[in-house]
């Protein structure tokens, strides 16, 4: 546990109070099991998503900095966000204020108009996934598993902002959630598109762009015979889940891939009831897939020759030198 006094400042972000309420419900249920204490920042505001930075950078930084200033008043230096976009904005603002003295000065001048101040570097901004994996650890999580997700083939979908540009794991081929899901007993499929883009706000602006990006991810998860896609971000969940029908219509495909949050998977493995985890609020229903838990999983399709196939050349290990 790296947080002093085991407490974390919690920044939910707007989605978790609306379209991603299932994420918050399941996260809170899981955190209780893991005995992590999250204290919601009082009167937090929106992080501006990707929109505010496009228009006017100083108000955008100031908007985010208000949250940092409010969080810094709490008796902890750990600030946690479950939404990847919120996490990035909070962390980017802290980082850029640290890098650029002029920005720090200007943002603090704006904050002063509201009687606030933020000293960059005060908080350590983290994503919920990183907190659970790094501070709790695989072993402690494994100890809480009462109903392993055996038989379920899951595609771990990280999306962009949890691993880029601030690298909490490899920015190209992260694996820390893979290991988490394995600890929960699931079969994790190789998933080359795991850190590719879900389309972000393009679903609102340019469907041509967004639906193709969503299609690629669904296509890849289906090709690797995943039963469920697991996400760490409300935007990713929304795009892959809510627009799956549109994608099917546009491309004549028949994807039927439920998209759940990693906290929902943890809750299921901890033996919590699906309803308590907000399962059922996804637009592509997950129940049929979840019924596979406990059954014998389908065999993983082989993509690489075995080391001792008669004629085959040795396959290099994945381990770096």
């Amino acid at each position, binding site marked *: 546990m790296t947080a002093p006094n085991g407490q974390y400042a919690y920044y939910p972000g*707007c*989605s978790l*109070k*609306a*379209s*991603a*309420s*299932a994420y918050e419900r399941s996260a809170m249920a899981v955190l209780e099991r893991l005995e992590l204490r999250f204290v919601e920042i009082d*009167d*937090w*505001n*929106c992080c*501006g*998503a990707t*929109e*505010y*930075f*496009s*228009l*006017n*950078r*100083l*108000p955008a*930084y*100031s*908007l985010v900095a*208000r949250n940092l200033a409010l969080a810094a008043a709490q008796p902890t230096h750990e600030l946690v966000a479950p939404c990847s976009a919120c996490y990035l904005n909070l962390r980017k603002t802290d980082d*850029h204020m640290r*890098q*650029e003295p002029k920005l720090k000065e200007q943002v603090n*001048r*704006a*904050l*002063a*108009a*509201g009687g*606030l101040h933020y000293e960059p570097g005060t908080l350590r901004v983290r994503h919920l996934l990183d907190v659970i994996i790094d501070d709790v650890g695989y072993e402690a999580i494994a100890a809480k598993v009462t109903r392993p997700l055996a038989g379920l083939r899951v595609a771990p979908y990280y999306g*962009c*902002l949890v691993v*880029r*540009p601030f*690298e909490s794991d490899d920015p*190209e081929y992260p694996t820390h959630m893979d290991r988490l899901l394995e600890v929960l007993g699931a079969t994790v499929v190789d998933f080359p598109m795991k850190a*590719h*883009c879900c389309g*972000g*706000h*393009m679903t*609102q*602006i*340019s469907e*041509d*762009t967004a639906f193709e*990006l969503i299609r690629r991810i669904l296509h890849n998860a289906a090709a690797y015979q995943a039963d469920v896609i697991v996400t760490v971000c409300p935007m990713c969940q929304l795009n892959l889940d*809510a*627009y799956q029908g*549109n994608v099917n219509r546009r491309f004549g495909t028949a994807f039927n891939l439920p998209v759940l949050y990693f906290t929902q998977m943890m809750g299921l493995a901890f033996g919590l009831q699906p309803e308590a985890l907000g399962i*059922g*609020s996804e*637009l592509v229903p997950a129940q049929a897939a979840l019924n596979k838990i406990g059954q014998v999983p389908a065999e993983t399709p082989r993509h690489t020759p075995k080391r001792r196939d008669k004629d085959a050349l040795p396959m290099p290990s994945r381990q770096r030198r």
Partner: protein
Amino acid sequence: MPEGPNGRTFYQRVVQATPGGKSLAQCLQCGSCGGSCPSGPDMDHSPRQLFAMIMAGMEDEVLSSNTPWHCVSCYYCTVRCPQQIPITDLMYTLKQMAIARGKYRESGHVDFSNSFIGMVERFGRSFELGLATRYHLTHNPLKMVSKGTLGLQMMVKGRLSPLPESIRNMPQLTAILTEAKRIAAQQEV
């Protein structure tokens, strides 16, 4: 080289408005950015080309390009750039400059951003239903039909709130944003 306000070139202004932007000088024109971009095929110039154009001082062409507006903020270009150029952040800078000069072509992006920010400035929180309605009503009323179906589904699942939620201390946030805008207005972009 055409110069802007205060005798600074377009290139210098772009670099100075972007944290870590100095590394733009080291661009190798390798195309890692354009190759990695998920929306690359939709862009009229690859990011790499924009950088060459910035260096050539082609301000009007750069700020009229649709490229920054297709950026989905995935940061693949940023982490893959061999010269550690903060490409995604440069795209934010260009969008801002384009708005300041009234140069962008595809208004959809800007108006969506504006709708979003309007909500935030009013309530301190974003409000998905209000956003969708306002944005699509002004832009693409026909789309409201399909979006409306989706919205209904979402509401049935309890994922779309019919009413906006507001923060308590709106006056504080307004004061902060007003001051930030005032400071921003004093500087050229």
